[in-house]
């Protein structure tokens, strides 16, 4: 053993077998167990220094709280440590490939974060005089211009707060258009079985009955079935394109033609616009309304589940029914139209208070400017190239759901290749965690048994793709070799083992409750 001159060993001793090693305190090196703030904090502790309050006469007598609220406080160092420790229990795009199909987990440029924090864009109020926020309204107008140009559509409603909110906006515009034309009796929406769950949920929310459209063996809308189901009762079709199987709807122009011929509108779920941005304009396909998830195609951060943003582009026919607010500009500057009166009277209402997700608009606009028309086209091409590369390199071991022809931005496998291994899609996904990757989307779309939907996005290098592919190949070989223990108990190396979801649902425990006596009350 080498020693330095005070006796400190500088080389490790030969490794012993660490199997079954447990620390004495339950600690796990860098991975800390972390209590709840309710177990850490104190009633009288605070991490914020505020000036003392000099009470004055108040008219709130009888309206004030007389009971404790029950909120623990943490000093700043305790708070920082609590949240940093928790953060280390999360997978993230910044750590490794995060191939959740249909979610588009791509790199989030930090420039966009910096721009969104400029005081002139972040520290402004939605209701301060419009004359004092001309730059903000101009930014909304610029964003609208880019979205309209990229989609080839004449109008956009910016305010929806997420993809599902955008779907709602689009269907409400369609509904308003039908009612204005005396077609309020159209109460059916057609959607393929492969649709995102939000599609039927949104349609039902709007009072529509949802009828499923059959799918062909090659994963597309069955035109004959669509034609048979269209009619005077149909308000709209909702079709995702590229669809949730990761395939472009080859017959999309014909789908639009049939839909319009039946007097219905074509709602396109734009969740997968990132596969075609800059190469295909949905306006050229006959789409009437399409939401764009700014957090997918234009890379605003997913933030652990929101906030998103879901602007909706609209065709000429639907544009008059767009919700307030929207931007107009003339020689006097930019203006937000906030009320559905006068020439705007056909607007169906508003989606929410204020003007939408400005913080996301800034990030998306910075992303668009950074990429430009040329870069966005390259985004689509690289996203599609990466997905096809994964499909090509895994097809000998795993079974692609639709082996014929190219996929778009995501590669879909079924679980036929796992037959007789005793390993399920869930097991395989959990084993990926041990290899350092976030699992793919699993068991979706519903039309493919044991579905595994892999979306790499364009921001993965070839080296990272190869590392991912190699890990999946090793896992696939292990599954076929009968190493079921590797899968059944996976993940082995995550902060926790598999969690009991049945217990959570059977006896819901949705908030912290003090165990008597309340540990904090002792202070």
């Amino acid at each position, binding site marked *: 053993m080498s020693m330095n001159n005070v006796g400190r060993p500088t080389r490790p001793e030969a490794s012993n077998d660490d199997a079954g090693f447990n620390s004495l305190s339950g600690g796990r090196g860098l991975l800390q167990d972390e209590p709840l703030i309710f177990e850490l904090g104190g009633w009288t502790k605070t991490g914020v220094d505020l000036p003392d309050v000099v009470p004055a006469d108040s008219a709130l007598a009888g309206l004030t709280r007389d009971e404790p609220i029950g909120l623990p406080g943490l000093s700043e160092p305790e708070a920082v440590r609590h949240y940093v420790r928790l953060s280390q229990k999360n997978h993230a795009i910044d750590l490794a490939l995060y191939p959740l199909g249909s979610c588009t987990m791509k790199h989030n440029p930090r420039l966009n974060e910096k721009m969104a924090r400029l005081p002139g864009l972040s*520290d402004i109020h939605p209701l301060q005089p419009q004359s004092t926020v001309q730059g903000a309204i101009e930014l909304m107008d610029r964003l609208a211009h880019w979205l309209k140009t990229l989609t080839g559509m004449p109008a956009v409603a910016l305010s929806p707060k997420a993809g599902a909110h955008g779907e709602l906006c689009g269907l409400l515009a369609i509904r308003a258009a039908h009612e204005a034309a005396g077609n309020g009796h159209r109460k059916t929406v057609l959607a393929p079985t492969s649709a995102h769950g939000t599609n039927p949920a949104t349609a*039902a929310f709007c*009072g529509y009955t949802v009828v499923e459209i059959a799918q062909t063996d090659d994963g597309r809308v069955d035109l004959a079935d669509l034609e048979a189901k269209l009619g005077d009762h149909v308000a709209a079709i909702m079709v995702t394109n590229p669809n949730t199987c990761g395939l472009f709807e*080859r017959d999309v122009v014909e789908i639009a033609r049939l839909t319009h011929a039946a007097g219905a509108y074509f709602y396109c779920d734009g969740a997968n616009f990132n596969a075609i941005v800059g190469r295909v304009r949905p306006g050229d396909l006959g789409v009437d309304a399409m939401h764009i998830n700014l957090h997918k195609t234009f890379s605003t951060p997913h933030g652990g589940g929101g906030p998103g943003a879901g602007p909706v582009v609209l065709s000429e026919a639907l544009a008059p029914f767009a919700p307030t607010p929207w931007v107009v500009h003339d020689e006097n500057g930019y203006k937000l139209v906030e009320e559905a009166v006068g020439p705007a009277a056909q607007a169906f209402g508003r989606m929410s208070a204020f003007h939408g997700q400005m913080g996301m608009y800034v990030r998306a606009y910075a992303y668009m400017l950074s990429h430009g028309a040329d870069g966005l086209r390259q985004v689509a091409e690289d996203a599609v190239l990466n997905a096809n590369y994964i499909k090509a390199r895994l097809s000998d071991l795993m079974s692609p759901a639709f082996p014929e022809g190219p996929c778009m931005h995501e590669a879909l496998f079924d679980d036929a290749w796992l037959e007789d291994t005793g390993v399920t899609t869930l097991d395989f996904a959990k084993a990926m965690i041990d290899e350092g990757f976030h699992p793919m989307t699993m068991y979706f779309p519903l039309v493919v048994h044991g579905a595994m939907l892999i979306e790499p996005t364009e921001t993965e290098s070839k080296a990272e793709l190869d590392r991912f592919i190699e890990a999946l190949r090793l896992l696939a070989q292990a599954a076929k070799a009968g190493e079921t223990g590797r899968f059944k108990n996976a993940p082995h190396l995550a902060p926790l083992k598999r969690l009991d979801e049945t217990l*959570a649902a059977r006896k819901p425990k949705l908030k912290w409750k003090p165990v008597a006596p309340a540990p904090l009350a002792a202070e």
Partner: protein
Amino acid sequence: MRYLPLTPEDRADMLGVIGAGSIDELFVDVPAVARRSEPVDLPHHAGEIEVERELLRLSRRNRSAAEGPFFVGAGAYRHHVPATVDHIIQRSEFLTSYTPYQPEIAQGTLQVLFEFQSQVAALTGMDVANASLYDGSTATAEAVMMAQRVTRKNKAVLSGGVHPQYVGAVETLAHAAGVTTHRLPAAIDAEDAVIAAIDADTACVVVQTPNVFGTATDVTRIAEAAHAAGALLIVVTTEAVSYGLLKSPGAMGADIAVAEGQSIGNGLNFGGPYVGLFACREKFVRQAPGRLCGETVDADGKRGFVLTLSTREQHIRRDKATSNICTNSGLCALAFSIHMSLLGEQGLRQLASLNHQKALATAKALAAIPGVEILTPRFFNEFAVRLPKDAAEVVETLAAHGVIAGVPYSRLEPGAGLDDVLLVATTETTLDTDITFFAKLLAGAVQ
């Protein structure tokens, strides 16, 4: 292009592995009429320097709240957010993760959501809270939809004190779902009118406290009237800091409490993203919208957290789901939770008192101006004043002199006949000199 790692050599190699002659072969399914051979008519890519220049140009054309006296509220409030909050929410593991579909590698997000739900339940005085919705207005609309599911009745009564843009969001959703809305005329103190409007067909009563005019109300009597008619009481709060001083919705008999959570942890951001708080009685939880995080154990018996009761949700129930919502407002909920942890019980109470005192001082200064009348009888940190002139004009005049005086009520509801009403909000960021300068300018403007 700095965000795209593939080199031309990589692309060529990969096409070779795929067996495609060119990238165009991968887009072969696109109909010929829609294939574009050239980029669309927009500028080409730009470096960080150019992008910063453009965004800075736009930002400089806006007057930020920090630049001077600022009294704008009406549903969004400028509070001081501790530096720690923004630092933590920018950690990669929070910023660049997604909905915790794989709980084994998302315990950070899940524990935060569990803590957030616990904080929101405590603040609102309710049994359970969800993992957040988009914002206060959509949370209100979701609450109305939930009341329809629970009561199987189709009428919502909305107080004349509910924020008009919240009313707009509710009407959009309610009318689509076949719920009729009965919104009472704008009223500064509206309790009796609300009680009179409740009937046997009423599914829910929506009241806001403090309301859009700033009036704080004990809604206990409304709760009793609603429950007597078999209706649910939905209590809306747009200023979450008020929870630190005022009775909670739960203590006053609310069945569902919704709020805009922006005030805690989140900046103004010109209206979004914000964070909707949603809490309800336990017996209604299976009718609640949105994500719920629950405690459980892992295979080794260790405590952990998962998304739960998801059989309510769209990805399982599709057209039978309780809502179409797919995400929450995760990062904003995180910011809320961090700020609330830093404040703690004591900090929140002190912050709330400070806000209230600033409003009292401002009201006192404005009431001394001849012709200016304070309309709100009981307020927290926002109140309505009647001016002897059109409020929107006064706001423009004062803005030209560096003071953003508040929100003219006519901007929220143009036809209400309240063109002379100005909504004035204060927070802990309001300086005494701001109040003095505002009062001086306003006195000059209304002469």
